[in-house]
């Protein structure tokens, strides 16, 4: 059936995947050769995680075929994928933090050998061999929770090696690493390639790993929009292919110098999460907060809305202190929060779009103890139209909507409550490119109407496109404040990684 080159390990042909009515992947061809590194690039929602899930057997494709060593499969299951040597390292590494380094590395091997008894010396031997192969030294008996992030990643790589991986897929491998650690990782990747192991990097920030890659493969909206030798790509062309346009989201110059301070955060701290957080937010300002995972940005965002109770410090809105650690008080004061994870935190998936939009307004549409349903629905419809939420039926469950429309529902809920400060945590995570630009436009519109907006994100283009100032967080502190006009993506990325 397919032409099988000697060094082709995996070939996916005409892969398509539909979730309900949504097409996640359409007619995608993807090939991995032994010993080569591939950049699988694409924005959030482009379909790259779906492709990986199909490759590791977690999801079944709706069309297409997969060839492994020339053998054809309609779909894989996770056991088959592991058996042929496909290993994935997720962003959180999926390690057992209470077990030792050696136990974590040897775990998968033990499983596949169906050993019932724990053999300490074999465990150490397997782990040592794997570490030797990439030439690093890590204390075998250290518990994984005590070792640095970069070492955890290496442990995850070794776990793949110990179970005879032929392909290691790394999801967002550089997100949590410093610049020096990235270089160390690249050296290890070269070693892996020399020993015939293929590597796929999955990321929306690939400039850093481009130098060790042979091939680049770009997905956008579920289709393959560009592929070819890595030498033909640079950071700029990669971004262009990923976004599909030279997104000129030039923001209108907002004159906020004269504006009044809206939100003043003073000496806010919470043990183990963040400390000494001071900043002001002016009316009409869009303030960015960024930092790597674990920098405290999400805890800070939640603290602004009362979901995390700080130990000390204060938050004042227009000079009045807001009670800390109480979302209801925060809402009443006029602070809104759109969470990072729409599906579990943001939306009532099985409830109607109307209900999801109007949930914060029930108490405002009362007549004699009962809800005035007509006025409630009217108001919600107004917001649905204003935010151009596309749905055939507003009584439909909100989970039937696409990511972009779901995010607009989450926004509409807060906008209907006329907030004075809106905290948006990852406002465009998992939405398609078109919706993303729309959401950015909505953010700018809201700012123009005088709302103060805090955008928490690690999506640098997004921060640059929407924010005036960006607070860079590191180890729970504000490391620096960057003016978006005076920087660019590369500088910002370097700051983030430093």
């Amino acid at each position, binding site marked *: 059936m397919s032409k099988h080159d000697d060094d082709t390990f995996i070939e996916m042909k005409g892969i398509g995947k539909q979730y309900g009515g949504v097409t996640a992947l359409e007619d995608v061809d993807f090939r991995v050769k032994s010993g080569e590194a591939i950049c699988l690039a694409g924005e959030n929602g482009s379909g790259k995680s779906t492709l990986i899930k199909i490759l590791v057997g977690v999801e079944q494709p709706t069309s297409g075929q997969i060839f492994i060593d020339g053998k054809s499969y309609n779909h894989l299951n996770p056991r088959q994928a592991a058996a042929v040597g496909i290993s994935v390292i997720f962003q959180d590494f999926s390690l057992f933090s209470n077990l030792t380094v050696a136990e974590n590395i040897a775990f998968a091997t033990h499983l596949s050998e169906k050993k019932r008894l724990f053999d300490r010396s074999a465990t150490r031997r397997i782990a040592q061999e794997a570490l030797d192969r990439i030439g690093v030294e890590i204390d075998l008996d250290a518990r994984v929770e005590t070792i640095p992030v970069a070492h955890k990643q290496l442990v995850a790589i070794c776990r793949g090696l110990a179970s005879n991986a032929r392909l290691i897929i790394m999801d967002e491998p550089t997100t949590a690493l410093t610049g020096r650690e990235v270089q160390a990782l690249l050296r290890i990747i070269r070693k892996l390639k020399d020993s015939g192991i293929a590597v796929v990097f999955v990321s929306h920030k690939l400039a850093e790993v481009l130098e060790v890659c042979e091939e680049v493969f770009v997905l956008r909206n579920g289709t393959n929009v560009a592929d070819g030798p890595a030498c033909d790509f640079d950071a700029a062309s990669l971004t262009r292919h990923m976004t599909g346009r030279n997104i000129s989201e030039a923001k209108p110059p907002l004159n906020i110098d004269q504006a009044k301070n809206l939100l003043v955060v003073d000496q806010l701290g919470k043990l183990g999460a963040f400390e000494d957080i001071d900043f002001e937010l002016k009316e009409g300002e869009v303030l960015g907060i960024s930092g790597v995972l674990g920098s405290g940005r999400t805890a800070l965002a939640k603290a602004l809305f009362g*979901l995390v109770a700080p130990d000390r410090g204060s938050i004042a809105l227009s000079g009045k202190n807001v009670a800390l650690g109480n*979302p*209801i008080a*925060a*809402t009443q004061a006029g602070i809104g*929060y759109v*969470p990072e*994870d729409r*599906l*579990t*935190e*943001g*939306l*009532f*998936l*099985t*409830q*109607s779009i*109307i*209900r999801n939009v109007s*949930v*914060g307004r*029930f*108490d405002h549409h*009362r007549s004699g*103890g*009962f*809800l005035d*349903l*007509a006025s*409630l*629905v009217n108001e919600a419809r107004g917001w649905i139209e204003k935010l151009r939420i596309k749905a055939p039926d507003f*009584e*439909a*469950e909100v*989970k039937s909507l696409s990511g972009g429309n779901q995010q607009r529902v989450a926004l509409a*809920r807060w906008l209907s409550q006329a907030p004075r400060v809106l905290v948006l945590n990852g406002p465009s995570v998992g939405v398609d490119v078109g919706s993303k630009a729309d959401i950015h436009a909505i953010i700018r519109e809201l700012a123009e109407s005088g709302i103060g907006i805090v955008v928490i994100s690690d999506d640098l283009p997004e921060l640059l496109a929407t924010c005036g100032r960006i607070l860079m967080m590191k180890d729970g502190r504000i490391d620096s404040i960057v003016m978006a006009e005076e920087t660019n993506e590369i500088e910002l990325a370097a700051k983030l990684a430093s």
Partner: protein
Amino acid sequence: MTLHLLTKQNASTPEFRLAIIAIVVFITMSALSPDRFLSSQNIVSMAFQFPEFAILALAMTITMMTGGIDLSVVGVANLTAVISALILVNFAGADATGMVALLWLFAAFASAVLVGALSGLFNGILVARLGLPPILATLGSGLVFTGIAVAMTGGSAVMGFPDVVAWIGNAQVLLVPVPLIIFVLLAAALHVILTKTSFGLQATMYGANPLAALFAAIDINKLLIRVYVISGVLSSIAGMVIMSRANSAKADYGSSYLLLAVLIAVLGGVNPYGGYGRVMGVVLAVLSMQFLSSGLNMLQVSNFARELIWGALLIFVMVVNTADWSRFGKAKSGY
């Protein structure tokens, strides 16, 4: 202009299927035993029988809507019945008549509702403030309530009420049994609460996704406490009906009603994970169970076979409804 996604009357709603089941059971029983099942005597007798456990099923419904459960309903019903029975026996006495008896009945009823509300408040605090799983909190509190009732009575039945007490459970107004009137009023009230008030919608949405309710700044503590207080009040009214029909109160009456109330709520299409439930479905489930139970009684089917048939009915309805539930389950655990 309806606000409810799932109210559309099509074949996929649990209520529609239940309506069909209720009708099928009714017609089958009528056909098998037409002169007895359709006799006015039987119809009236059925209307006296089901309200007491149907009211408990309403209490179960509102707690299940939030993804919780109230296993203390029978305990609350018996505790409140014992307390009002003691008031009636000790202050009014069996010989009381006229205004005096009526006033004491009113006082006893008011105390029962108050105790029911306090019991619900206790459950609500355990679940909302202290964060205990509802199934364990109410299992424990139910034992406590029953235990208090046992301690107050020494385990024996309290009897010797004024005659007027029997009116609640045994009288008819324009041929309609009073317990049925009480049930219809409570069911209508619960329907209005769940569909037409801010509290009802918030309770439903909390059941659909508790975390999202937190992020949407719903006052979850207040919400849950109100849910369990309403459950307690409904249980106490069921306790009054049971007391009146039995003309006595005892700490361990109606012990089979707890399971029955859970079964009816689930049969009635209430999603045990929370987020969906209609009072109409619960009413239809009650009717189906009662038709089946009375019909089998007339056909002189043994009690053992009757339980088998009830169980089979429950499993059948759950299998039919499973298509919907598996999606709810996934939505909750899949991410």
